[in-house]
């Protein structure tokens, strides 16, 4: 008998420009909120991670595109999660970060900001300091 229920999402739609992407170990226990867990795990595992609309190669919105461009011009390794495939990703992310908009850039496990903040920091040189 095949289940028509979608399987829980363990793997976020991620891409990375790092040469050795971190392996995602299976989550143990706590099946209550697999998406929230996957997000928290991704934020903890990747030094720099961007939650965005679309992918770095094909951003789906101008704000996401600008944020990606700042990261790419600093040539910093980063992971990217496309929030578009599943609306629950954005929902859980905003609950975790207490931030309402996309994109969201995290570094060293903490929210750096959205497009406006990242752009300001890029222009002032603070972004390089925060990420490298």
């Amino acid at each position: 008998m095949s289940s028509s229920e979608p399987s829980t999402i363990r793997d976020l739609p991620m891409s990375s420009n790092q040469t050795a992407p971190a392996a995602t170990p299976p989550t143990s226990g706590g099946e209550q909120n697999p998406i929230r867990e996957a997000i928290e795990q991704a934020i903890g595992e990747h030094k720099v991670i961007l939650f965005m609309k679309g992918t770095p190669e094909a951003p789906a919105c101008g704000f996401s595109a600008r944020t990606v461009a700042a990261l790419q011009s600093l040539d910093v390794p980063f992971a990217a999660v496309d929030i578009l495939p599943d609306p629950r990703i954005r929902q859980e992310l905003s609950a975790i970060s207490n931030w309402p908009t996309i994109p969201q850039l995290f570094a060293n496990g903490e929210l750096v900001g959205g497009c406006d903040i990242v752009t300001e920091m890029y222009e002032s040189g603070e972004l390089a300091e925060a990420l490298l």
Partner: protein
Amino acid sequence: MPFPEEIKQRIESAIPGSSAEVEDYTGGGDHFRATVTAAAFAGRSRIEQHRLVYEIFGAEIGGPIHALSLKTQTH
């Protein structure tokens, strides 16, 4: 759909002593850019400053206010 003037007033009411300049930058009524100046921002990180403004609008961000681009400053 909100007007820039309404957004400006809501920010200035919610953050005493603040002044806000708000523009609708696409003309479509849902993409806004706001520059908010407030002494209340002093000593806070950019994230905290932006959160103070976003919290005024709650669930409207991403809804009727599709985008609210922020620049915050203390003077």
